[in-house]
């Protein structure tokens, strides 16, 4: 009879939140890195860039572990595809953080004083979305308790809406920022313009992937 308890396997939700922890370690480095970037202190960045690299690698390890333990024969309250999608999208956040860290550390790019506060608030908004996603991930356990229904699910749905709003706001800030940059284009060298555009894209990608993660949760709840 004791053999029947082999029917239980390791919960993928616990591992998903472990993965999220590593993703968040990448996210946490972005704000200090951007502070260094706008102040032109590229030479101070190496430690933070390296720690993003490490955390991203660890996240990848957890990702492979989850995929290994998720054979087709596993039965979960949410579809296996949704779990894999969630994992992929969480991982995207870390990837975009890494991209951003490389873009800002690869070249010493002078930042105009007029643009500094806008760039920082743009980054902050984008990171706010990832902060909320972390909260979402922490709530998964409570969702599991109520089998993805009831007031817990409603709270999570509200959080998902909020993340969507934040993402919309980052897009608006980005549009204004890019516009402002082109107004000042005579003061910026063309190479820097290209790089700035790439950096802004990377920052908005972080918010985009956060929204994608949130939407995967929505799919899980509305199943």
């Amino acid at each position, binding site marked *: 009879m*004791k053999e029947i*308890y082999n*029917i239980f396997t390791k919960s993928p939700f616990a591992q998903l939140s472990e993965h999220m922890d590593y993703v968040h370690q990448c996210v946490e480095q972005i704000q200090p890195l951007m502070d260094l970037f706008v102040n032109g202190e590229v030479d101070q960045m190496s430690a933070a860039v390296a720690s993003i690299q490490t955390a991203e690698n660890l996240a990848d390890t957890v990702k492979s572990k989850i995929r290994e333990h998720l054979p087709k*024969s596993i039965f979960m309250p949410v579809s296996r595809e949704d779990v894999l999608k969630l994992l992929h999208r969480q991982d995207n956040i870390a990837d975009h953080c890494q991209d951003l860290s490389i873009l800002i550390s690869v070249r010493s790019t002078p930042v105009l004083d007029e643009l500094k506060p806008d760039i920082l608030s743009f980054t902050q908004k984008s990171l706010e979305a990832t902060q909320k996603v972390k909260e979402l991930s922490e709530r998964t356990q409570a969702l599991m308790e109520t089998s993805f229904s009831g*007031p*817990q699910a409603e709270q999570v749905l509200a959080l998902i809406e909020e993340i969507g709003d934040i993402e919309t706001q980052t897009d608006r800030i980005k549009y204004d920022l890019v516009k402002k940059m082109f107004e000042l284009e005579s003061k910026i060298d063309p190479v820097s313009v290209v790089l700035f555009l790439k950096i802004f894209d990377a920052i908005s990608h972080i918010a985009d992937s956060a929204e994608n993660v949130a939407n995967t949760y929505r799919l899980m709840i509305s199943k």
Partner: protein
Amino acid sequence: MFALDTPTIILIVTGIIGLYMAWNIGANDVANAMGTSVGSKALTLKQAVIIAGILEFSGAVFVGSHVADTVRKGIIDPQLFAADPMILLLGMMSALLAAAMWLQIATYFGLPVSTTHSIIGAIIGFALVSVGAAGVDWSVVSQIVMSWVVSPFMGAIIAYTVFSWIRRFILGSRDPIQATLKLAPFLVMLVMFIMTLVMVFKGLKQLHLDLSFEAAVQLGLVIGIISGFISRFIISRYIKRIDPNELKERASEAALNHVEKIFIYLQILSACFVAFAHGANDVANAIGPMAAVISIISTGTVQLAVPIPLWVLVLGGAGIVLGLATWGWRVIETIGKKITELTPTRGFAAEFGAATTIVIASKLGLPISTTHTLVGSVLGVGMARGVASLNLSMVRNILLSWFVTLPAGALLSILSFWVLKLVFV
């Protein structure tokens, strides 16, 4: 020819084999009922062993006899052995021995086999070598096999319904703690009602306490309602002790944790229900063949209907308790550590589904597998989105065990039969 000069020896040997079988059942099977409660720290290991012992024993003694009839007489027609009762006697002994051996082998290899399947396989094996395929009542066999398929489904459906209900009205409510106070007593009532009904309605035949159906329902209702009120009182006392600061938000995780804590007690109740149902269902595997042997020895002939002596039921119950005490605690301990995934609300739903199915099948005289019914029930909870992850390859193992256990039991039974024939004839 008929070795009545050695009846005492045969009686003792049968008693030992029967006890061995019951010991095996107690050592391996019982743990499932109590493992969850030990795992959630609701019971200590010692308490679990004692409670399981008492309930297995009462299940075996009060409800056990119905299934024994089907196992013993249903598959083969005893009249075929009227001319030579010794063959039937040895056959039943070898079936018991084979089933017990197979159980131990399977336990060693970690296969989820059923005691019921082992004994049925063994009886079929003996029938094949003694009277040939024609002597086996295949319609009864197919009916039994059908019940194996049906019972996990039924367990799953009941567990699914109960858990969906708990999820919708308790876990998913605006105020889970108040909902528990309001609704949990009804669950307690339901469990007590079914248990009483089963025990009283025909169940207490052994004590000659036959009540009519109406009387049994009434008694069940009375006991159920009383238990419901007692449980409400206990739950409200528990709720009063909760720190109100902890519950500023009514549908918070803290509230859900308290609900789970309250359900620990309901889970103990459902675990008792499983132990009781298991005693009722599985003890027959050990005592059915034993009763046949004893009746042949005492009368010297094969009779159509023999009452199972109370002391045989007691012996079966005692064997289970013995197995539980000597070996079962280890299994309970292992399981208890392993299943933190099955929270009390889930555990309650799964155990309720399994126990209800087993008890109903037991009343209908169908020998079903406790193991597989419980697996079905856990899957039922899983289908209600209640379990984080289940390994469905377990279902494949169960199907495999259906295909392996019957032939293995049959083969071992044939071997034992030849050996016993050499010894006693």
